[in-house]
């Protein structure tokens, strides 16, 4: 029933994806009510989630393609192997 801070923050992380069970939520909330450190973690964790949410399209997923030269290079390497 009693969680360590490590276990509580792990549930807190899982909770960011809404994948905790009802029982896990209950245990987590009891811990957060009693533990200031984890309470602060929980609050800041939520901010981190929002940051990722906001910035995931701009910075974190860059458009990335193979260049024509790179493709040409792979093609050449592959052709060598085909002809072996």
């Amino acid at each position, binding site marked *: 029933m009693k969680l*360590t*801070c*490590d*276990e509580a*923050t*792990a549930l807190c*992380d*899982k909770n*960011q*994806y809404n*994948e905790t069970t009802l029982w896990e939520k209950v245990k987590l909330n009891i811990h957060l009510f009693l533990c200031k*450190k984890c309470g*602060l*973690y929980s609050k*800041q*964790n939520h*901010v*981190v*989630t*929002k*940051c*990722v949410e*906001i*910035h*995931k399209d*701009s*910075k*974190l*997923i860059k458009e*990335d*393609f*193979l260049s024509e030269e*790179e*493709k040409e290079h*792979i*093609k050449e*390497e*592959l*052709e060598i*192997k*085909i002809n072996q």
Partner: protein
Amino acid sequence: MPLTNKQKLNPTKWVILHADYLFNYTISRVSNHDIAKDIVQDTFFAALKAKDNFQGKASERTWLIAILKRKIIDYYRKINSVKGKAEVKMSFYTDGDREGEWIEECVPTNWNNEIEKSIENDELGVALEKCIEDLPEKYAMVFKMKTIQQFETEEICKELEITSSNLWVIIHRARTQLRKCMEESWFKN
């Protein structure tokens, strides 16, 4: 397509027909350009070697993706087995009387409220990206698949051949390190 019309492989056309698709699939998982490129190239080589095993039941692309998935698992196993140097920074005691308690210097401290309100700031995006890049590769990979690409837990577990409790431990360690990194690089000033 009629069942009698068996699919055939045409390796000389693989790069033109499938390289972009395979690269796109790979980059959303490993997020390093050169590594993704190498994995795609390896996939073509492995496919060529195994071409006699192709039975023509699936399309050429489906068959290549199956091989690519193996290559991604191999890569994940490789980064997962590099011990020591790629470990995440621990925030909690892992043994002794204080097991599971916060390590003093990792305890969250209050953030500057004003800065907290400005999370749309572009520079914060840069700081966040840097903190994610600082994570050991396997943690960054799982964190990104779950949080940015938003794959289902089950899907990631299947793809990387890990258990869900494994996945949540990785996410937990990634997020504790990430929170601390963001505290130091952004929210404390």
